């Protein structure tokens, strides 16, 4: 991907990317998903968060040290944002960084950190001014994961696989030159990446819903109970027709909102509507998939030639999607307040 110049589809040409417009990115993600190309996996944070943030906010030295390596996939990043007491209310984070000469000394705990076990660097949010209002005392640091004082403990997810970790930080000394943006300006720096996450980042996964629903329909035409196929149930067929209409409408909504955002260059708040509907739709599809499996749902691995592993992995994984990257409740708040102009709730 890197050699052919396709790794950084959204990245500026000056940094080795394609500098594709949002519409072109959407076409790229559609083709990528259609070709069943592998998920970006451990490179997600670097390519979609860390890299784009450094391109916009990093110093020349920071860019030189990280950007080419992130793009090549030989520098893996993880995200140190969430904490046990700071999930949806991210700005209430408490991990503390105190200046000591030309270092920050960091103490605290991060959680739900994907790929921390294999990461080389962490985009770390820390509190540098405990007396400032909560959004104004945060800084964005580049933390090398091999520093002394970092303890990564796996936190298995409900489907039993370990991509999550807790990260404990005990007097970790991070050089001041690893500060990205100004001290105490980390909240603004962070929002540069969150907007990307809610824009085109899920396009490939949205496209995959079409394939999943076709597989569910195909399976429903195979499985039988008391001599009748699952597909012979008019209620199930109707529900699948409904889901197909919703999948296509979602894809068209994504195209429409991307087409509109293309002019401004960044995905707008309309991305919240797409994220909200996508993640809840995926759960509805998951419910139908599990129903079609019947008692075969009691396996997490394949049985009797049925796609149990595929269906149940997707259905269980979908539970995380209405929580991560801004929960459904946060998206509704954003839509209500920023798009519909309703008054804030406090």
């Amino acid at each position, binding site marked *: 991907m890197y050699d052919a110049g396709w790794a950084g589809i959204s990245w500026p040409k000056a940094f080795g990317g394609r500098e594709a417009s949002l*519409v072109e990115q959407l076409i790229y993600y559609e083709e990528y998903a259609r070709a069943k190309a592998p998920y970006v996996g451990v490179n997600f944070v670097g390519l979609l968060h860390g890299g784009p943030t450094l391109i916009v906010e990093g110093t020349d030295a920071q860019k030189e040290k990280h950007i080419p390596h992130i793009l090549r996939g030989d520098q893996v990043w993880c995200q140190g944002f969430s904490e046990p007491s700071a999930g949806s209310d991210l700005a209430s984070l408490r991990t503390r960084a105190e200046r000591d000469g030309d270092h920050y000394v960091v103490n605290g705990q991060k959680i739900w950190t994907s790929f921390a076990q294999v990461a080389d660097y962490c985009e770390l949010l820390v509190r540098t001014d405990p007396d400032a209002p909560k959004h104004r005392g945060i800084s964005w640091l580049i933390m090398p994961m091999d520093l002394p004082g970092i303890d990564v403990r796996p936190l298995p997810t409900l489907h039993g696989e370990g991509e999550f970790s807790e990260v404990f930080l005990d007097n970790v000394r991070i050089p001041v030159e690893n500060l990205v943006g100004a001290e105490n300006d980390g909240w603004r720096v962070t929002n540069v990446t969150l907007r990307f996450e809610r824009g085109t980042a899920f396009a490939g996964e949205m496209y995959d819903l079409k394939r999943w629903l*076709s597989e569910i*329909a*195909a399976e*429903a*035409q195979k499985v039988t109970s008391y001599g009748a*196929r699952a*597909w012979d149930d*008019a209620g199930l*067929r*109707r*529900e*699948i*027709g*409904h889901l*197909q*209409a*919703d999948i*296509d*409408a*979602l894809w*068209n*909504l994504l*195209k*429409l909102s*991307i*087409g*509109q955002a293309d002019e401004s260059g960044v995905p707008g708040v*309309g991305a919240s*509507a797409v994220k*909200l*509907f996508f993640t809840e739709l995926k759960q509805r599809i998951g419910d139908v998939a599990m129903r079609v499996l019947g008692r075969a749902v009691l396996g997490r691995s394949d049985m009797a030639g049925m796609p149990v592993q595929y269906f149940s992995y997707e259905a269980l994984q979908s539970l995380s999607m209405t929580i991560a990257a801004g929960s459904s*409740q946060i*998206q*509704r*708040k954003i*839509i*209500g*307040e920023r*798009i*519909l*102009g*309703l*008054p*804030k*709730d406090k």
Partner: protein
Amino acid sequence: MAFKLSEEQQELQRGFRDFVAGRFPLERAAEIADGKPDHALWGEVAQMGVFSLRLPESAGGLGLSYVDAALVFEELGRALVPGPTVWTHLATGLIDGAATGETVVTGLDLTTNLHTPYVLENLDAARAVLLLKDDGVFRLDPGSIEAMPVEIPLDPLTPVHHAATLPTGEKIGDAQTASSLSLLGSLLSSAMLLGIAQAASEMAIAYAKERVQFDRPIGSFQAIKHMLADTFVRQELARAAVYSAAGTLDHPEVGDAATAVAEAKLVAGESAMRCCRTSVQVHGGMGYTWEVPVHYFLKRTWVLETTFGTVDEHADRIAATFGG
């Protein structure tokens, strides 16, 4: 391919919206609902070019696309413009005088699963009735139908008759024409449902900002805010589905128009129903009164949802594309 409306289309949308809002304020609809006939209205709708807009300019039309037509019917839906606008538009080119609105046309799409009694809209005003059947398009004389007026229609702006049987009528189009008119009728009804969804949501949002309970606007409460966020998402999905279906009719090479239109009718029908019901709920006790016009939108939704295929019927059609 562009994934957004062109400058000209956005201009058409804004211009037509302002024009319709100026001509057909809700008060005008409310007067008709209260039993005061409005004889000028149909002529004004015809003058706007609603029926002839897709005819080529050489035939006295505007030569506009399906997307343009969808934008126009969205605004007719939003403004609750009464009368058989969709059927008269469909009859253009088949029945003399439909393009100018001089011949008012109503109809029934029997390619969908309608059961008896047959319920006909706006029959008293109509000079021709179109029947879409699997084997072609048929024209009936309204006087030839043994139809009984329904004393109290659900939608006060849509008078209805019922009939146990229908005469055969005169065949004026083949099966292919019947099926493409059914598709177009479904698209234009979807567009009107989209307009309704948006109008009902906007009323609810405006009310949530001004109605104060417990010393604050009710729109500041999460329970209300989240309902309105959901209706916004549903409404924007309907917009995406309707515009995309219209675009597929304009450019059949990009996809299967029949499926795209079925999806649009399903998503728009469901969206309008949800937006209207949420709007009634957000309006609270006032939402249950005749005085607050939300109920007109809800009732018009039923009129449009039960024609050219229901949500359920379209879901079944879409499921059939999976084979099996």
